[in-house]
């Protein structure tokens, strides 16, 4: 957005660029003699130090994650920045680089990330990799062997508490015998060698160091991973003081690329197209993984009738809402600004403060307050005016209500910017028109309004783009209501953004991939509208300037 905004500005500066361009020899001489101030140097050192600090801070997680490409990029960027600001050359780049870096970090990267997500099935049930899904399936299928005992557990080692290999000391509740278990299996210990507390927990054993909770929890992962094989399955820890005999009922078999249930013999074969293990009868295991699905998210938007059916109607209302919100607030704000701009008006400051009040209140709270005011039975509006209107229950009243709320919330902003722009228009111009015998209306239409529009057009366009995607305005008031009785997915006040939010997050879990695809469609629409508008604005500016 900032690029087209600066377009007209740079164009108007173009004539002045000639002399600047012819100056290089002089400016180089000036640069060599440019004094290095202490503040300047300190600022430079501080900022570069900060850059280095951030780079070091960012390097640790990259090293941890063994992300060498990322680390190389980080090092190259940091080195580049240091070179750029320590050398005396490349003056233009010194100005351009910070903005470009921020543009990449906050605009380009999110857009690219969204775009790349749109080609995947990333969402609930498909968040991680296939390996993670396999681990999750196996761990969640570990069940206690029926009829097996629960053991009191102590964690012990023969070596150093921090590094020695771990041993489970377990007490059989039925016999009271103590055994030591490791990956090799269980070995019974001599009752004389062990001290057993009343609960059955071993507190000391000859030849072993019993770990306390602090020591044991420091080696948490090893304890969770330690599985002591037994006849019926394997002894596993349940926390640090109990062990049970458990068995993973489901196991992954790399040979058939499938998950097999050892109890029932049922198999679920990996389907790498959908990112899930699917049985022959179509049943899927809940834990899936993220896969590339190509264009299917995009084709779903276009071909699914539930989505493309109401799309056009929603798009039209979306335009109407954005235009009405922007236009309405602009007209109201500008009218008030014109009135208060009149030199004959008294107490303008007080009025200005009062008028800006809605702008000073948090819009979230105001939207909720307005929602309650439109309540058919208990709402302030019906009660105050003695009406019996089911505001959010009928399409047109609901649409009117949300636009009214937007008008109230948005006019102070337009009033503020219009006031500013009006004060920037020299009074001589309007005085000149009155000398020429123009009526106030004529002077407004021919002089004030065009000058005002030159200043405010970019703001109107950005306001339009904002309102086009004004999620809160709908979601906190009507939530898209009223809905046709036979279609709960698309309501009369739904904007594209609220409608698609419901599609992507309303069903069985969040579908980020699908949501990303839709947001790319919306991005395309807003981008086209904005580009066309900015083109027209530029033409308009050329006419008036």
């Amino acid at each position, binding site marked *: 957005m900032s690029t087209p905004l600066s377009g007209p500005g740079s164009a108007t500066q173009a004539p002045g660029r000639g002399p600047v361009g012819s100056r290089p020899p002089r400016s180089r001489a000036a640069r060599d003699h440019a004094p*290095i101030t202490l503040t300047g140097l300190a600022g430079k*050192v501080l900022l*570069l*130090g900060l850059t*280095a*600090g951030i780079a*070091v*801070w960012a390097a*640790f997680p990259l090293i*941890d994650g063994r992300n060498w490409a990322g680390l190389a990029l980080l090092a190259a960027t940091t080195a580049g920045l240091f070179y750029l600001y*320590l050398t005396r050359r490349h003056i233009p780049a010194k100005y351009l680089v910070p903005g470009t870096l921020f543009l990449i970090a906050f605009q380009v990267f999110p857009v690219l990330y969204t775009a790349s997500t749109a080609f995947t099935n990333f969402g*609930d*049930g498909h*968040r*991680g990799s296939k390996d993670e*899904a396999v*681990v*999750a399936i196996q761990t*969640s*299928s570990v*069940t206690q062997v029926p009829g097996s005992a629960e053991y009191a557990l102590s964690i012990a080692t023969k070596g150093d508490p921090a*590094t020695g290999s771990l041993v489970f000391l377990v007490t059989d509740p039925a016999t009271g015998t103590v055994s030591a278990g490791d990956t090799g299996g269980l070995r019974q210990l001599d009752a004389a060698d062990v001290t057993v507390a009343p609960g059955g927990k071993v507190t000391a054993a000859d030849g072993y160091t019993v770990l306390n*909770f602090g*020591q*044991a*929890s*420091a*080696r*948490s*992962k090893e304890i969770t991973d330690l599985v002591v094989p037994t006849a019926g399955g394997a002894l596993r*820890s*349940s*926390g*640090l003081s*109990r062990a*049970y005999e458990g068995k993973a009922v489901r196991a992954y078999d790399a040979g058939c690329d499938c998950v097999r249930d050892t109890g029932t013999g049922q198999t679920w074969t990996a389907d790498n197209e959908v990112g899930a293990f699917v049985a022959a009868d179509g049943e899927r295991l*809940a*834990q*899936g993984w993220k896969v590339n699905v190509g264009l299917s998210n995009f084709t779903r938007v276009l071909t699914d009738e*539930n989505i493309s059916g109401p799309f056009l109607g929603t798009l039209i209302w979306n335009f109407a809402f954005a235009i009405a919100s922007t236009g309405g607030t602009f007209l109201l704000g500008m009218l008030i600004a014109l009135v208060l701009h009149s030199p004959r008006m008294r107490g303008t400051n007080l009025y200005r403060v009062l008028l800006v009040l809605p702008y000073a209140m948090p819009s979230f709270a105001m939207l*909720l307050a307005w929602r309650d005011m439109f*309540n058919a*039975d*208990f709402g302030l509006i019906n009660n105050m005016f003695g009406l019996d209107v*089911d505001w*959010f229950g009928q399409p047109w009243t609901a649409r009117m209500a949300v636009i009214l709320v937007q008008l109230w919330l948005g006019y102070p902003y337009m009033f503020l910017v219009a006031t500013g722009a009006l004060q920037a228009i020299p009074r001589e111009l309007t005085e000149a028109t009155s000398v020429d015998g123009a009526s106030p209306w004529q002077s407004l239409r021919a002089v004030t309004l065009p000058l005002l529009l030159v200043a405010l057009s970019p703001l109107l366009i950005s306001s339009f783009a904002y309102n086009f995607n004004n999620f809160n305005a709908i979601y906190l008031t*009507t*939530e*898209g*209501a009223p*809905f046709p*009785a036979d*279609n*709960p*997915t698309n309501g009369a006040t739904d904007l594209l953004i609220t409608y698609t939010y*419901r599609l992507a997050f309303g*069903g*069985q*879990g*969040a579908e980020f991939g699908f949501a990303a695809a839709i947001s790319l469609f919306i991005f395309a629409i807003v981008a086209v509208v904005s580009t066309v508008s900015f083109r027209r604005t530029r033409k308009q500016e050329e006419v008036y300037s």
Partner: protein
Amino acid sequence: MRIRTAGVVALFALALAASGCGGDSDEPTANQSPKAAGGKLVIWADDKRTAALKPFAEKFGKENGVTVEVQAVSKDLQTNFVTASQQGSGPDVVVGAHDWIGNMVQNGAIDPVQLSAEQKSAFNETAIKAVTFNGQLYGVPYAQENLALIRNTELAPEAPKTIEDLVAQGKQLKAAKKTTETLCLQVGQNGDAYHIYPLYSSAGGYLFGTAANGDYDPKDLGVGKPASVEAFKKIGALGEKGEGVLKRSISDTNSIATFTGKKCAYLVSGPWAVADVKKANIAYDISAIPGFAGGKEAQPFVGVQAFYVAAKGKNKALAQEFVANYTTTPELAVALYNAEPRPPALTAALDQVKGSDPDLAKFQEAGRNGQVLPAIPAMAAIWDPFGKAEAAVIGGADPSSTITAAGKTISGQIK
């Protein structure tokens, strides 16, 4: 010359910054190699629970020589937990509602908890059933909650036996200008599946059938079936075009306030409403939500709050120790009850607080025949379409076409 000075000073600053940041990064590196410290347990809970958990977490830490951190996540705890888990920055233990289980399991975010038969028997049976998913126990419950009928005993001294009784009594009060509404049951512009479910079940509707292993079966969807249409015909008869008992203008924001303002004699709500009712000094009593005359019992949803062990936590053994062996003690359950009065799931804890709070037993009695809120991921597809169908029918739409359409939308969203 000057270039060199600047370069030297900058390098010096770099060294300073690096050493400064080195100091900062000592902490995370210590966490990643916990050999230095005694191990750390991180718990995520919402604001209220965090405050109640803190003293117990500290006690657990002190007794066992570990550090326990309770962190409050005030918004979207489940989503934040699932996302953070995936990135490896999640907690070891999380506290939340049992209907999150389905989604957390399909994202591989939580591990099953192994409780001994003895430990299990200390809990209310419904609570254990609620945290069981695919035949595995995924959490340790500590509190349960369900809807009940709260009535103003000054206006309505007798608990209604049926909905018809309630409507008749409510209408009399309305005719006598004592109240302005018959029943405060929140509907809202887009419906409220949770609050209408008791009436829906009483009229014969169901959401999911039961599979062979006792879990809900997402393939057997009850919405859109003839029984659900019949149920919504009965609900529609109570709606705006019928008796005017159920109204879209009564919503989550004003339903309790309307009751405490004495504008209605009956309120359908849960334990969370009691604080407001007490504050308004209303003489009240709690009973089961009545069903339709000649219909089935009205079954409210039973929800359970539970502790879960994160699958990708850094300290799983300690987390399991905390969840399986420490949260099963009555003291903790009582402290959590004091933070927010919901009936404890541990029978011993419930017995302990029942004496000082008679409402608890009444809520539990009202939820005795309740249905465990389905935790399967498919349930997420129900809420929105079902609620909207409810709102449409209450507003006067044709039940048959509305519910059929809702059923179609829901089944289209279930994978």
